[in-house]
């Protein structure tokens, strides 16, 4: 169970966030896994389920700066990265940073942006830097993108190809809250105000420290081999056209390490991998038959591979 967090620090963050993000525990944990694995998160969900709330809550609780990009089809790359503006007073061009120069960036409805804008965003995500007019600007650390995508409305959108989706470490959907959580929300009204008032519980330095701690979590060759045979199986499976890449393998091992850290262990066990697989892998493969569920296919493959020991 992914909710079974045992690490005290992480537990504190989750409990803190839970006060104003009712019924989103799983989404919170997965977002935290993405942040601490130095990856980015893609949320595919219907509007009005609290994507923005989640992003704001995270930034407040972790004491990080927050930027938001609402994508439309006339959004330009410079609207994201920022641009050089002529300053009359100094008579020089001055760099005006875009919303991407924040620790947590919410890219809403990423599939509404044109491919050109999408790719400039994805490039910035991968490189963690932006180059404008020949000058390279480093993005702040930690840097974490939460992109959202609406799975229902396709009219006038540019869905991200799987090759681009590969750049998101995790893809989740928040889903409807439980009846109990929903009734609580309705009783109390929107808690957006509370969110903005949320007190920070951690700072940047601590986040960076935990990130480097997680990279030192021990992962045995036995598990690496098991992951590799799984990746290999996805490449050979007749139901799949495009199997998992090496980047996917890296993402699996990073997130598994983070998961192990959350569970209070300093080594990875197969369950850590199994738990995060449904969020790390399905968006990276292409099936022959669209009618099948990617997640089901992935789970059926991993079920066939013997687990060590």
């Amino acid at each position, binding site marked *: 169970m992914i909710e079974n967090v045992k690490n005290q620090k992480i537990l504190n963050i989750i409990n803190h966030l839970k006060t104003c993000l009712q019924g989103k525990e799983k989404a919170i944990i997965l977002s935290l896994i993405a942040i601490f694995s130095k990856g980015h998160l893609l949320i595919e969900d219907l509007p009005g389920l609290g994507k923005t709330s989640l992003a704001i809550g995270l930034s407040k609780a972790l004491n990080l700066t927050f930027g938001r990009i609402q994508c439309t089809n006339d959004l330009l790359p410079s609207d994201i990265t920022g641009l050089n503006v002529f300053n009359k007073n100094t008579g020089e061009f001055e760099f005006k940073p875009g919303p991407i120069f924040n620790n947590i960036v919410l890219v809403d409805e990423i599939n509404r942006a044109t491919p050109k804008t999408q790719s400039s965003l994805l490039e910035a995500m991968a490189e963690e830097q932006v180059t404008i007019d020949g000058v390279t600007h480093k993005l702040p650390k930690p840097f974490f993108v939460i992109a959202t995508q609406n799975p229902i409305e396709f009219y006038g959108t540019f869905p991200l190809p799987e090759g681009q989706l590969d750049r998101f470490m995790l893809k989740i959907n928040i889903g409807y809250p439980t009846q109990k959580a929903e009734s609580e929300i309705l009783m109390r009204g929107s808690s957006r105000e509370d969110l903005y008032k949320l007190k920070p519980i951690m700072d940047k330095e601590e986040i960076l420290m935990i990130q480097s701690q997680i990279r030192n979590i*021990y992962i*045995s*060759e*036995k*598990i690496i081999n098991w992951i590799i045979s799984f990746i290999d199986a996805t490449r050979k499976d007749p139901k799949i056209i495009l199997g998992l890449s090496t980047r996917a393998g890296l993402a699996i091992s990073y997130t598994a390490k983070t998961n192990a850290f959350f569970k209070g262990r300093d*080594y*990875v*066990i*197969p*369950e850590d991998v*199994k738990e995060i697989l449904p969020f790390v892998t399905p968006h990276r493969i292409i099936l022959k038959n669209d009618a099948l569920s990617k997640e089901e296919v992935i789970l059926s493959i*991993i*079920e*066939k*591979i*013997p*687990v060590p*020991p």
Partner: protein
Amino acid sequence: MRWLSTDSLKVDHLLFFTSFLILIITFLGIVSNISIIFMVIFLALIFLAFLVHFRGMKLNKWIINLLSIIFVILPFVNFSLEDIVIPSVEALALISAVRFLSQKTPREYFQIYLLALLLFSASTLFSFSWTFLLRFFLVFALSLFSVFLITYLKDTSQQYVDKFFLKSVFKYMLLIIAFCIPMSVIFFLFLPRTPYPLFSFGFTGSKTGFSSLVNLGDVSSIQEDRSVVMRVYIESIPQEALYWRIISFDNFNGKNWTRKEKISFPEYLTISGKRKTYSVLLEPSYENYLPLLDFPSKIYLQNVTLEYPAVYKTATPISQPLKYMADSYIEYEYYESAVSENYLQLPPNISDKTKKLVAEVTSKAKDDEEIINSIMEFLKNYEYSLKELPRGNNPIEDFIFNTKRGNCEYFASTMALMLRIKGIPARVVGGFKGGSYNPLGGYYVIRASDAHLWVEAWLNGFWKRYDPSSGRIVRYKESFVFNFLDYFWNKFIIAYDFKTQLHLISNLKSPPIPFKRKILFYVLLCFIGIISTITFVIYQKNRTPLKKFLKLMEKAGYKRQQNKGLMEFVSEISDENLKNLAMNFIEIYMKIYFKDKDFDKIHIEKLNFLLRELNAHIKSRRSKNKGDN
């Protein structure tokens, strides 16, 4: 060899090669018995199969069917009812080669193996050599391997296999073989067998015996054959006395020796010497004459007729291995009061030149004994050779005057001829000379290459043996490995018949067959060693804490699936107490295992302690359940 260089091998090629080896190994068992034409056709078909396989050629189905039909009919074109085995075997060999040629699906491969199995069984009709065991093991292992491969190909439709796959296949193969060996020993010892051979119909194999007619140069072809002719169980005796007598000849026409059927025994005959009793295990010779140690006095075998002088003849040609006992005298004195005129017969075309030479050679001799010695001395100038033997119209004169080289046949014939010219009765005796002693089994091995002819001359009433070519023949020494295998095979496999089986069952305490205890001891030791190593390895594998844990959990009714992680497995347990205990165990276990640390003593003890706790809990739970019921 492109396909060999990569890490993964193509299943196709691998299967092709294993099947090729299976076919060739079985074919080797029959190759010396089938006719040369069919051997060539077989090899050509195999070669063609290689072309077809590696060039990716495709043959029409009807061509293959036509070939099959032709090859079934062809060997039977000129056959006799007595000789039905060879054509059948030939047809079988050719059909399997044709099968090898055609497109190969798993079904075809199984057909090839079935045909190979039939061929293999057929090969036992021809030979009982220990190489059978070797071939059997090879074919067995290879067939197992290819069955694995075919199953793999069928189940996964993967085109390539890698090292790991092959490794695991070999592991299972060894396991199966290790299991089969003790089983087959048990079957061999106790499965009922018939006291009579199942296939007693005859066929003509390669002849290694002497017939009643010997053309000059015939024996040399026998001498080039290395196959074992017989084994004689007897105490070790000096090589000079080792003459195995089969037949004697009296009539010489210049080109060949024959024997007159009816020479009657003389009125007065005595024989004395050292008496030896021995038993002979004779391989099929397809002739009627029995080899015996010179000079034989008695044979313990039914339906054998004795012809003068000491030629023992069976009623039918010997087409099955034959065992008999006999008595012989060595260093004997053989007296006859009078001899037949036949022993002075001369070929009609004998030249004056020869007679003159004989006179010259024996000019200094005063009596018969000196004549013999001078002829023996004269023949020492001649060269012994198995090659380029004179075979013209008058081979003896060719030998004496021109080539001056020949084998025992020429030496013996020349000597007998010269003695007869000088008026001394003489005859040529055919048989074997020498033999290699197998100290393990206490028997002599005599090979076809030991075939020999020598002379007997009647001197002052005594028949004496003279061997003009003795000391010229270099005998091949048998290796220890051969001796060992030969002994083992013959003693324990071939000689193990219905009688010994009955004996074994009725009297299990005492060893049923006489053997050297030491050898049995070593064999047993090896066997026990192998079995105990295997069990130890399996035991050790099961002794790891995890295996114990999983066994315990299975006892408690929770079986772990291969695709479940330990934590996943334990968290699904419904019994809370058991779950906690199990969780304790796997937490410690995983901490060591997934951190790639070695299990040291403290850890093992700790784990074992937890296991005991678990065991106690499971036991108490079970007794509680019983109480409830």
